[in-house]
């Protein structure tokens, strides 16, 4: 970040070369430097993650305590003066008594999903980490198209603004889930005076920008990896991180356009009154809609899931990418099965285009097609397992440093395991018919994304933070972050499997209160909850609904657990322990060969990859790591070569 963050010798040296210091705007706002863009993406992504998380807390309150006013609302409203201002801003988001109703719950749900997936995880995992780390790891000075890179961020930013703006338009944001299924999504609020008074139209417009942003990003990533690898950085010496980014970029490149089509067609349905997704004879409220009909809702689902299944791999692969750096580095052991990882991820990328309709078993698909999709879905779990196994085996026989990032990394492994294994039953149509759209599915993918990907992202933040700022994040606060997160995550998501198998639908805003007195609603988990609650003096009923309370408590623990992280993140910029050298973790990949923070242009010498990226504990070598850039004789000289590298251009 800022040059003031370190008094490092190299950095000072470098500044002597830089004759024209760019101004503040050029440096931090309209920056074309991949590192700054990475950081911009990172901070925006983290803020969106927090925002989405907050929406989820409101939802969890409504599920656990349906109809009960939100805590502290009464007190806030009672503040003279301020209360009414609060009311005029947020009043529309609550019932008169301060509780949430179903409509608003739906808005929160749809926006939570959208924001987490398209504005939280993807920008963080792919755009932030990828932008910052990937060019460094392949030893280049910047992305192939720096200006497009900047454009990509600002498209993303615009799309974020539009998306958030949809909270303030006439009828509020979308209510139709992050999947936006038509015909519901094509027709809701269609009677409103202007299509722009409805958040849905804004959602679609925002998505068009978001998709354009990721297209620009992915073109850039692929071109960079193909053409800008430094000397000696052959494909098979490239860190797995870059391989994963390469595959993600392809997924984004080829899978997003169909979603763009889906969005454009839906927009046309809403704005121009076409019937792409509306069948003939569609009625609403007992009246025929004023449409021509002749379209098909299935078309939307196909286009959407053609993107959205590859998208889930876009969500998970950054996790594997980050861990492939964090785990070998902290286990002090080479990554086990580098080649299988590479081929695994390529296979995964390829297969992920062929499985999408496993989300559509319930649409009346015939047996031939569902057989096909079941087979490919089961097939695709094989490379997933290969990836997981390689990471797991990499731990074997290592001398593991349990710093914060390693804690997150090692928690990832079983958590992703649970998520993946619970996905397998869903692959079979006859099971999925029962489980589709229940909390079981929600549990499945949250296990993969939340304690999976998000943990890996945290690991990445702790791992690369010293490179960005020149200071460590506090390990103690890190542990205060880790344990509540782990406990909270499991409390939230594990009970979902139980509820899901009991048939709880995923979109009940009251958490199934209607079925409170249904019989057969108890099992061991509810009794356990009842007894534990009783032990602490709470009267928790012995039925499935009590799990709602468990999950919501878990969510609040999770929320508390993020406080140490936020403190740690901001205070360590200035107050963290300084790093002693440019390679504080003793890592082997090229990003650690740069000065800290890496200056514009990154390297002070022309980096050459002399060996593979994971040479830890090499027998016969002095230190327990052997970086890619070191020759047999030791480090390359920095000063003279740096001048040569500059002179060359």
């Amino acid at each position: 970040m800022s040059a003031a963050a370190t008094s490092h010798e190299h950095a000072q040296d470098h500044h002597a070369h830089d004759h024209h210091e760019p101004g503040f705007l050029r440096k931090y706002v309209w920056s074309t430097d991949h590192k700054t863009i990475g950081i911009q993406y990172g901070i925006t992504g983290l803020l969106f993650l927090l925002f989405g998380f907050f929406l989820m807390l409101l939802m969890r309150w409504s599920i656990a305590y349906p109809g009960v006013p939100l805590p502290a609302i009464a007190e806030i409203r009672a503040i003279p003066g301020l209360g009414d201002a609060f009311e005029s801003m947020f009043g529309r988001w609550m019932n008169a008594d301060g509780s949430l109703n179903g409509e608003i719950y739906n808005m929160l749900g749809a926006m939570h999903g959208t924001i987490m997936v398209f504005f939280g995880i993807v920008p963080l995992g792919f755009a932030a980490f990828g932008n910052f780390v990937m060019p460094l790891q392949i030893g280049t000075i910047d992305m192939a198209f720096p200006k497009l890179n900047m454009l990509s961020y600002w498209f993303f930013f615009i799309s974020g603004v539009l998306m958030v703006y949809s909270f303030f338009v006439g009828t509020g944001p979308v209510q139709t889930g992050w999947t936006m299924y038509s015909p519901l999504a094509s027709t809701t609020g269609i009677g409103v005076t202007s299509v722009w008074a409805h958040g849905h139209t804004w959602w679609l417009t925002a998505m068009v920008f978001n998709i354009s942003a990721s297209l620009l990003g992915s073109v850039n990533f692929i071109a960079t990896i193909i053409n800008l690898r430094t000397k000696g950085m052959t494909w098979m010496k490239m860190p797995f991180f870059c391989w994963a980014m390469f595959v993600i970029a392809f997924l984004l490149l080829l899978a997003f356009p169909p979603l763009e089509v889906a969005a454009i067609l839906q927009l046309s349905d809403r704005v121009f009154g076409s019937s792409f997704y509306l069948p003939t004879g569609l009625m609403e409220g007992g009246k025929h809609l004023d449409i021509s009909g002749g379209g098909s809702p299935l078309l939307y689902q196909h286009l959407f899931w053609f993107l959205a299944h590859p998208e889930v791999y876009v969500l998970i692969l950054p996790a594997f990418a980050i861990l492939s750096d964090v785990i070998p580095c902290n286990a002090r052991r080479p990554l086990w099965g580098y080649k299988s990882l590479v081929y695994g991820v390529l296979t995964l990328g390829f297969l992920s285009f062929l499985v999408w309709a496993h989300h559509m078993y319930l649409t009346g698909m015939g047996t031939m097609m569902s057989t096909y999709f079941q087979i490919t879905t089961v097939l695709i779990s094989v490379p997933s397992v290969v990836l997981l196994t390689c990471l797991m085996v990499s731990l074997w026989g290592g001398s593991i440093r349990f710093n914060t990032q390693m804690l997150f990394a090692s928690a990832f492994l079983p958590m992703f395991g649970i998520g993946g294994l619970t996905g397998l039953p869903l692959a079979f149509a006859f099971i999925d018919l029962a489980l589709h759209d229940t909390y079981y599915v929600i549990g499945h993918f949250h296990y993969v994304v939340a304690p999976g990907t998000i943990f890996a992202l945290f690991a990445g933040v702790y791992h690369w933070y010293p490179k960005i700022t020149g200071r460590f994040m506090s390990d103690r606060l890190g542990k205060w972050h880790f344990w509540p997160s782990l406990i909270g995550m499991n409390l939230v998501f594990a009970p979902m499997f139980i509820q899901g198998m009991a048939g709880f639908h995923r979109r009940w805003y009251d958490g199934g209160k209607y079925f409170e007195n249904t019989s057969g609603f108890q099992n061991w988990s509810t009794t356990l909850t009842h007894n534990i609650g009783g032990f602490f003096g709470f009267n928790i009923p012995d039925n499935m609904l009590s799990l709602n309370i468990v999950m919501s408590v878990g969510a609040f623990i999770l929320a508390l657990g993020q406080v140490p992280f936020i403190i740690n993140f901001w205070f360590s910029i200035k107050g963290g322990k300084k790093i002693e050298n440019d390679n504080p973790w003793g890592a082997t990949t090229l990003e650690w060969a740069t000065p800290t923070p890496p200056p514009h242009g990154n390297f002070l010498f022309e980096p050459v990859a002399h060996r593979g990226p994971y040479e830890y504990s090499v027998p016969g070598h002095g230190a327990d790591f052997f970086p890619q850039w070191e020759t047999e004789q030791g480090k390359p000289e920095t000063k003279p070569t740096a001048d040569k590298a500059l002179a060359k251009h």
Partner: protein
Amino acid sequence: MDIPYTVTSRPDTGLYNAKIGIWLFLASEVMLFGGLFSAYIFLRVGADYPWPVWDLDVKLGFWNTVFLIISSVTVVMAWASIKLRKYTQYKLCMLATIACAAIFMVNKSMEYAKKFQHYAVKLTDGTILTGHLPHGYQVKFENVDALELTIVGSNKAVDADPVNHVLSSVVGDVPKFKFPSGEEKELNKATFGELRKSMRDAAFAKMQDERAKMIEAAEKAASVATTDFAKYEAARKLTIAKNYHSLSDTKVKLIPSAPLKIAAKPSQFFGYTDTSLTFVDGTIATGKLVDDKMTLEVDGVDTRAVAQSEQSLAFDHRYLGEGWQKAFVANRDHHIADFEKKYPTRDKAKSATLQKESLFFKEFHSAEPPAAGEAHGGKHGAEAHAPADSHGHEAYHPTVVIEKKDITFFSNFTPKLNTYYAIYFTLTGLHGLHVVAGAGVLAYFLFFNGRMLREDPEHLANRVEVGGLFWHFVDLVWIFLFPLLYLL
């Protein structure tokens, strides 16, 4: 410090950066248009109406094809010219390319404009009448004596807005309105804003009043409570009272000083009865319906969805009547006989072309139907008499007045009409955007990269090559679009 391989190629991949970039971009474009084409197939396979074939102006489409192909040749020649250092030729070629793009877009917009003026009306029996609306289509009310609207208390939903949604459909001068306060005022943004504010304030005051009363009652109950339960109840009531925040909606009536006449376009209202018209903002005008008939200059009768085509509602005595019915039948039988002669073994029901030619009647060449016996039918005769309709001139079209109760759906030839026109506009619209963008980039290279041409022609050659690749892709998409939309 420069990024490597912007001009020269990297030895092992043999490519410069921008070339990889453009090919990747084109790959994603392939998926974009792939998605659209698969939507096209999906819609066509699933269509429950006869998919239009040869519905568009083929000549125009063909000329556009020609211009795009020529521009494809010129753009690749432009690149070659730089490589050969023939700078004048380069400039001419680029100019030609941009000119072709401009012609293409002009053609396209003419085609679009014609569609917006052309209407299709679907009758209750499935007949579709196509034609023009000489006076537009409006539902007319007279003696409108009140506007009833609802001003919502909180900002939860979309509010009434008669200034924007009603006044534009008033015929003649807009009189003053009597406001609820009793004053007579002009209805405009300012006065309505005031009204809205006063209503909101009143609702707020009412709410505060009620809240105070509730709190008072709850406090009174608390002070007299003796049992634990009563105390608890009172405390609970107090919480609810403090939280009470519901702002009620207010109904308002605006009375015009003189009765209004209203003529509203379909996009302006939700629905109407004999005595009231509900505008899209929820405002209800009460009055008397005088006219909801549609006047249509018919240029086509499509009976493909009608079981017995000669019994189509279009030939009802109120509409086209018997004379045209005869002409239609003659035309139909002529085509069928023709077909039978040409293809004796084929199934007539399966020929889309025959269906269209025989059941989609377009042979209007005079205001009156041809006298019996004179009905010619058949293409050759038609061409000899008058140019085909698509030329737009010299076609006489009978005018019919269609009753509202006979109409199930109507639209101009826009995406609303059917899924074919929806996908047609989406595909060609997106393609048109690509044409504009591509031509813009090429124009930028031509007009703003003059210095690069002199100083670093290889770099500019790379740029033109990349821009050209994009341009070829645009051409390539059109090569598929033309037959899919215009011909097949």
